């Protein structure tokens, strides 16, 4: 467990020099205890105190960076078990595995294919985080060559998969500046693997035979002075991996069990791309920091990336869409005009319902800082006084030749003020988005 402010205070210089930005050492200590300050802000702390404090104030799960330059994948440093407790911070890295048994041309073609896995939806862009190169050949030169080929074709983050430390060293030497993840240290090779990792200052994956073996191995590696680690319990069966990932996360967060205070790596086993995406979904949902996959099916990966985006959305912040005027279908100057807030869930629900009416329409996402209709109305952000002047000057006046706007039924009360300030006729729509189809049928002749 972490230290209290008072315990930390005892380890500080107690000179109240203020160089840390706090008025007193005690104030600084209290902020350290609550995680609001960083020990490096104190220039005079002793090495001894530093070590004790770093141990005690370290986050429950270490942040690990893989890659260098523009392409760095940050994983770990999670603080909760459920996203509703706070949020998940570092989305699962999604990697595609390639084998060094492929010929150079095949490998290049494969990497081209991976580079092209770029997905766009609702104004967002997703792409594969990296490539994992596997030493299936068992040959050091072949592996090194394969790693060189892949590195030459992509600037994505790399994982090198071999358990032979000599093979790893040879391959890592050609991509040392890319800071690849080295997979893996095991009970048989960890001393040499740690040397390789230290030499290139690259993060190191640790694979145990089970959770206990993994904890032992991590302690030994930490004993050798290396902490840039990523964990693998060795399990591959979906429900057992789920159990192991849950144990690792729980023990790190709730028990501050140090050997498990690192991010994790998982591997899919399903061959069918659709089944593989569902298996990967489990690891994205429950605590996998990296998932290494084999298939490159676009529709399957699109759904997986979308799920990752959803589960890593910060529940503390309402997600908003860009405020503005959206055209749904082939709009004409006669198209009806709807207005709602720019809270994304509201917006997309309304948009889907309007699409279902099959009447080309305009939908205005009014800027309410991402609040829903009733909340925004109660907060004075979705009222006639706000919408009216905006509507009067809006570009929508040039887009349509009528002046009728459909508002959500829940805020019928804004009708009068809105009409007065905008000069538009207000039509009160249904209270719920699900009523739009019936509304359109009755009022717009859909």
């Amino acid at each position, binding site marked *: 467990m972490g230290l209290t402010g008072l315990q930390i205070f005892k380890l500080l210089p107690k000179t109240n020099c203020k160089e840390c930005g706090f008025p007193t050492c005690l104030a600084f200590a209290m902020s350290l205890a609550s995680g609001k300050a960083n020990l490096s802000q104190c220039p005079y702390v002793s090495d001894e105190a530093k070590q004790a404090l770093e141990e005690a104030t370290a986050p429950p799960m270490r942040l690990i960076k893989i890659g260098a330059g523009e392409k760095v994948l940050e994983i770990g440093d999670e603080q909760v078990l459920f996203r509703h407790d706070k949020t998940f911070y570092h989305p699962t890295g999604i990697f595609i595995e390639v084998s060094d048994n492929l010929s150079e041309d095949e490998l290049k073609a494969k990497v081209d294919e991976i580079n092209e896995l*770029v997905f766009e939806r609702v104004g967002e862009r997703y792409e594969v985080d990296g490539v994992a190169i596997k030493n299936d050949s068992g040959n050091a030169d072949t592996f090194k060559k394969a790693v060189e080929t892949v590195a030459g074709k992509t600037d994505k983050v790399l994982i090198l998969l071999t358990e032979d430390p000599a093979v790893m060293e040879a391959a890592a030497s050609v991509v040392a500046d890319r800071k690849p993840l080295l997979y893996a240290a095991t009970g048989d090779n960890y001393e040499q693997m740690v040397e390789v990792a230290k030499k290139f200052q690259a993060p190191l994956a640790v694979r145990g035979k089970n959770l206990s073996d993994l904890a032992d191995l991590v302690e030994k590696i930490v004993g050798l002075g290396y902490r840039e680690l990523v964990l693998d319990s060795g399990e591959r069966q*979906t429900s057992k991996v789920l159990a192991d990932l849950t*144990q690792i996360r729980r023990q790190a967060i709730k028990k501050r069990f140090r050997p498990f205070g690192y991010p994790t790596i998982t591997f899919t086993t399903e061959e069918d791309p659709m089944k593989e995406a*569902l298996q990967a979904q489990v690891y994205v949902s429950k605590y996998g920091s990296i998932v290494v996959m084999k298939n490159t099916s676009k529709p*399957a990966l699109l759904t997986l990336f979308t799920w990752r985006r*959803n589960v890593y*959305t910060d529940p503390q912040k309402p997600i908003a869409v860009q405020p503005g005027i959206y055209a749904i279908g082939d709009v004409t100057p006669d198209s009806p005009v709807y207005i709602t807030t720019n809270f994304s869930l509201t917006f997309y629900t309304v948009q889907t319902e309007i699409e279902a009416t099959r009447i080309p329409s305009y939908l205005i996402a009014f800027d309410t800082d991402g609040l829903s209709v009733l909340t925004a109305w109660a907060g004075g952000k979705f009222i006639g006084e706000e919408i009216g002047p905006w509507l009067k000057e809006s570009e929508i006046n040039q887009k349509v030749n009528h002046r009728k706007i459909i508002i959500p039924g829940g805020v019928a009360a804004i009708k009068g003020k809105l009409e007065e300030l905008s000069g538009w006729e207000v039509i009160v729509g249904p209270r719920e988005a699900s009523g739009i189809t019936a509304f359109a049928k009755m009022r717009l002749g859909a």
Partner: protein
Amino acid sequence: MPVEIFKEKYTGKVQEVVLGATKEEGGTRAYTVKLGGSSALPFLQFEGESARPVIAMEVWDIKPNWHECFEPYIGDVWEDPVAWAQKLEQEYGAEVIYLTLKGADPERENPKSADDCAKLVKKILENTKAPLMVEGCGNYEKDNEVLQAVAEAAAGENIALGMAEKDNYRSIAAACMMGKHCIIARSPVDINIMKQLNIMILDMGVPADKIINDPLASGLGYGIEYSYSIMERARYGALVGDKMMAFPIVCLAGQEAWRAKEAVAPDDAGPGWGDQKTRGIMWEAMTAAALIQGGADIVLLRHPEAAKLIKEHIEDLMVPNTY
């Protein structure tokens, strides 16, 4: 150094609800299904029981307006709900038949009468073996009439009737009590309304082992994370002893997924989207898989290929993971 396995100690569990009734139990179903009953978080069998999620499949009483990629699978039966239901249980692995009485909607031309609906339900029960769930057309007044007739026609079969919402639950609860059926209580992605509605339905006299909750789960990409978190909170609430959060959860995954543009847009409609058929099936399967991970006890699926994927996925998740 053996790692000590961290098991949460829970005091509560998810309410168990049985759907369907066999001959011995006064019905005609070949089997019953158990919803809920979990005493652990989803699939964490190392600390308790995790109930196997059940797969329900969708039948409409009128020809559905679904995407053309459904045609090769159910095009031969989608104008005959009885044959459709039979095909779902015989060929596509539906464990529960979920009938939606869209045709009763008074806003349609020639809406079906309550009597038509009751007859259809009876006929489906006569020709299928699986437990049945029946959803009305969504028009409160019409549903009062329709669901009461259905409840009478299905007496003894222990079907589930919905959707009971805050403004119409009384008549549906009464119909369920009269026919000794289960009730599906819907709340709009809101845990407090869900609890209130459960309390009101219990107050009406519906037994706790007859209540199923529909949290109106959203589809992948369109708010599913809200539903996922609400379900995770509800499951956790159930395990720590809040009985009003403890009813088994049904998620209408298929219909939500197929509303998404991504499910139905033509091949390569957007960057990285790939072919429509795989994408549509995957949109549904991913929606269902995520909701199962969040704690759904029964998922309603639409596409037979998605149902197959989810069935296999559930098998993988049900492999024992006790230490």
